[in-house]
């Protein structure tokens, strides 16, 4: 397994070059690039600019683990509005294109967003149809679409069997699960998601979670690795069982009040212990 961390965690005000140098110095093998987050990777970026971005990543001694996006929350593919759905398809298609340019073979999308106004059943149908449509450009680009389990935030596909039914309905080998082991909260157990989805897992996001805290008040439910309630030994063993040997990507919240770069070193050290099974 290789370890990566998102460029969205690069401290505010840092340049891309300094951020990549920090990621490399902290011991990561790769960087996850978030389309729509930092100024260096926006929808307006041309192919030439994306190639330049790849060069900077490689010059820093890293590779791109995958391409994610921050746009799905505002522009969901499950929207009732066809113009929004079309916009969503455009940014996901751009993710696929940029992944190819950046040398990555997987993208992350937040597929479907249930709200009080947009009900589960219609979200389900639209999401299956649109993700299935997007599997075609994905297959041509040799890039897998990993639909992330955002469970409580997304209010969609909350259980592993539900997610399995969704993937069965999409019915494409180019569409799988980008599993975030910190997003399951108290609705289940990540090691069970891993066993159920096995080879359909495209990438793994890691962070820890306080199961009992819930999404209330201003206290985050998320925390750094080994500080929360995830059973990391079980998660590691389940990954061994399914013979997962891909990317493990830190998706942390920036929680360090001082010395923000320290979070990179601490996270990298924890991930190494996880990968090596020293827990």
């Amino acid at each position, binding site marked *: 397994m290789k370890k990566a961390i998102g460029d969205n965690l690069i401290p505010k005000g840092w340049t891309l070059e300094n951020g990549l140098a920090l990621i490399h110095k902290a011991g990561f093998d790769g960087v996850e690039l978030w389309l729509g987050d930092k100024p260096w990777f926006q929808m307006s970026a041309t192919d030439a600019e994306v190639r330049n971005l790849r060069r900077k990543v490689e010059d820093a001694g890293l590779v791109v683990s995958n391409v994610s996006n921050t746009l799905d929350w505002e522009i969901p593919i499950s929207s009732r509005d066809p113009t929004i759905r079309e916009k969503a398809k455009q940014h996901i298609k751009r993710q696929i294109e940029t992944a190819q340019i950046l040398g990555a073979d997987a993208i992350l999308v937040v597929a479907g967003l249930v709200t009080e106004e947009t009900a589960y059943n219609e979200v389900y149908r639209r999401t299956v149809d649109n993700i299935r449509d997007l599997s075609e450009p994905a297959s041509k680009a040799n890039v897998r679409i990993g639909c992330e389990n955002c469970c409580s935030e997304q209010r969609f596909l909350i259980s592993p069997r539900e997610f399995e039914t969704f993937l069965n309905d999409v019915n494409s080998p180019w569409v799988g699960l980008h599993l975030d082991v910190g997003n399951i909260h108290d609705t289940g*157990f990540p090691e069970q998601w891993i*066993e159920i989805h*096995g080879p359909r897992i495209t990438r793994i996001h890691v962070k820890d979670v306080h199961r009992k805290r819930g999404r209330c008040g201003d206290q985050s439910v998320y925390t750094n690795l080994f500080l929360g309630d995830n*059973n990391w030994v079980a998660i590691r*063993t389940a990954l061994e*069982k399914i013979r997962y040997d891909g990317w493990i990507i830190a998706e942390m919240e920036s929680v360090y009040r001082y010395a923000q770069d320290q979070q990179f070193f601490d996270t990298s050290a924890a991930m190494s212990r996880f990968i090596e099974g020293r827990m």
Partner: protein
Amino acid sequence: MELSRRALLGSAIAFAGVRIGSFSVSCSLEESRKAFHGLPPFTGAAGQSPVLVESSVGLAIENLAWLERKGILIHQPRTVRGPAWVRFDWPISAMIRDFGRVSPISGGVVIARLNDLPVAVRKGPLVVLGSPLGPHVYAGDRDACALLASLTQLP
């Protein structure tokens, strides 16, 4: 026999067997029987055809005695805390979840362990499991299905 009569009777469930072609299975769990298909009861005398014996929750005394005569001992079941996986290295490499309790087994070639504890052995045509496989096959676990398929294809 280390398994006490009291412990055994406390957990014993009616013994039943199934036959898949020339492959015989003896098991006590309802889910295992469903997983292994409900065919006529196996009596424990299948000659040299491969025989799978699934223990852990309970076997009738006559079957434990039958195994003992073959030189295989099923020891006192142990409770497993938290999720844990039994690691098989024969006939294929597979990891199967525990089922809450496992019975250590001795007297044959060890084919699976839970941590350092031997929980499955083979001896001639016999394969004896101290941790149930059937419920995981019934639940559709990939490794469990692959392991069973591999066992049923043994010569």
